[in-house]
């Protein structure tokens, strides 16, 4: 009985070593096929033209265009900004305040009581809208999604302080949001908000 057990263990160990070899063969045989059936960002080996994950994702994925890009390009175009939001805050799929501070590289986020839906008529500021093709990739539907989702309004010499306007209500996953330089707002409105 003891000999049988020893024999069983010996065979089992040799079987393990063979099993490892077979498992390696399975991996090698299936590797390329798995990648062929998988979306680009789930492929094991997929070389992009850049290793910048932000650029890669924004030029390919609507989720990144909608949820990451508004904050990311704020940081790229206007780092160290002050961002003013309504007293109740802004609700977006990526939590707004932390995303503005982290990806948007904002200096701080302050809260002021105002109505972000009705504060401004953005059509009147259209000449100050920063063209999206000056900062975002033009690949695929990037420009369309970016323009549907967000915009920056700033004069040629930005003040460094932006107020957030959300004409369609809280941005959530798909609604529009705008960062408007406060120099573009009437003095009287600014005074009413207690800004400067």
């Amino acid at each position: 009985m003891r000999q049988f057990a020893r024999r069983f263990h010996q065979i089992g160990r040799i079987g393990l070593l063979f099993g490892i070899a077979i498992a390696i063969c399975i991996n090698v045989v299936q590797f390329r096929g798995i990648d062929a059936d998988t979306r680009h960002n789930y492929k094991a080996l997929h070389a992009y033209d850049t290793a910048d994950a932000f650029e890669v994702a924004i030029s390919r994925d609507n989720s990144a265009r909608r949820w990451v890009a508004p904050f990311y390009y704020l940081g790229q175009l206007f780092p160290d900004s002050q961002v003013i939001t309504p007293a109740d805050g802004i609700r977006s799929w990526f939590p707004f305040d932390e995303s503005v501070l982290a990806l948007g590289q904002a200096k701080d986020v302050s809260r002021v009581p105002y109505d972000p839906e009705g504060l401004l008529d953005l059509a009147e500021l259209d000449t100050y809208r920063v063209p999206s093709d000056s900062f975002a990739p033009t690949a695929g539907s990037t420009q369309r999604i970016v323009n549907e989702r967000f915009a920056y309004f700033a004069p040629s010499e930005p003040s460094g302080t932006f107020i957030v306007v959300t004409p369609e209500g809280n941005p959530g996953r798909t609604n529009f949001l705008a960062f408007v330089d406060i120099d573009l707002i009437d003095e009287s409105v600014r005074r009413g908000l207690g800004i400067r």
Partner: protein
Amino acid sequence: MSEVLLIALLLATGWALLASLGLSGWGVVPLGFAVASLLTIVVGSILAVTGSPTRPVAILGVTTAVTLSFVAVRRWWPTVDDVRVLALGLATAVPLVLGFRALNLVSYHIDSFRYLVASGLLRSDNYGEASLNLLEKRGLSAPIVHSLAGAYGEDYVRSFAPLLTLAMIAIVAWFIVKMFEGIHPRLLIIGTAVGAILLIATNNRMVWNAFYINDHLVFGVAFLVAAGAAWTIAFGRETSHEAMLACLLLALPVLVVTRAEGFIAAALVLLPFATTTAVTPSWRSKALRVLGYSMAVWFGYVALTAYSRGASLSIESAGPALLGVALLVAAPLAHRLSDGSLGRRLLHAGEASLWVALAFFVWRDPDILRESLAATYENQIGGAGSWGLSLVALGVLGLVALLVGGDRALIQLRYPLTAFVPVFLLLAYLREGAYRVGNGDSLNRMLMQVVPLLILYVASAAFADRGASGGRATSAEPSSPEAEQSPPPGSLTPSRRHEKSR
């Protein structure tokens, strides 16, 4: 170039820590890189929860200062061989960093950017503004590591994940070689180590994970290092046990702050370590205290943050915090555990209680289990999870290893793996509901965390009852309770070695 300096600093930090604790040879390079990453995460976590500055310069500065102080206290000075090992490490790492940066390989999911949000908050000293979702779901490991890229104006450390993957593969091979050399034919050991390396390196999901911006890799490395170090301390003969203890004590808190299920993984690694009489009681007690403090502090921080923002205390954060306190209270009991059979009964009870808990949840809502198993079948057999049949093959190998491996010798590796099976299913109940079909499913990705340890276990089982036991496990094979107390003549008992090294 700046990333080269960062990686070189990490490598030198880990090298100094491990070499000063008596570890030598090529293993210092991959283990050193992993250990430095773990230490950086521990330091960054302490800075974050205490509201201290968390800019890259602060995290790196404190990490370096801690290392230098440690080395100074030990009055360590490198030998020529130590310097050669460091030179080897740097000569290997520099071209790898440059190469990985040039390859433009990156894997991501929309959640990858949530980790980078947390990174950005750390980089700008704003971690106190992190939402509860960020605290509870993204943890600190990946955010801290990638925040270091802020030192040279980038958003994440591009070569970190592929380098850590290479280190992880080398660590698996190192454990195999270190534990069995001198006991089995050298060629057989090297062949098995190469097999283990290839088993990871040819696995499609593990390669994908090597470029993924997420925390699965850090979790997998911490899980592997903790279990491997515990195993080496309990049964190894040739390795610096103090260096291994440092690895274990750093990996435990990193598991806790990496993912929500991390504290369970840490507990499962620690249970066989804390209940074996092969390890001196003071070391067992130390490890229990480290896990207790880690859980109490991190989950206490999350719970208090939630409370201060008007949210009610949740069981997900308050529960583990209280468990951490309970561990601190229980830690001194490790000194009283002198009976190996009691330890084994505790292990069985721990594993059984997880299955009982799962049975309770299934009784309440069987649909979640049914849907989860169906989705997992599609992911692993149907190909939807992008694993091919690799996990099926590994699962079969794991079962064979269970049958032929000496369980006493491999308990430190086996227990966290088998006890994690019910945990995976329990998580479906405790977190997001049933698992789903697709390669983005959380279980499908979490499995990457256990693969390195599973491969180490399978490869080691090929040698098991003679190999690891060269010191103790061989003699412990098979069943006598007192076997743990009686190593073969001429070999030091682990506890004696610990006493000497203190």
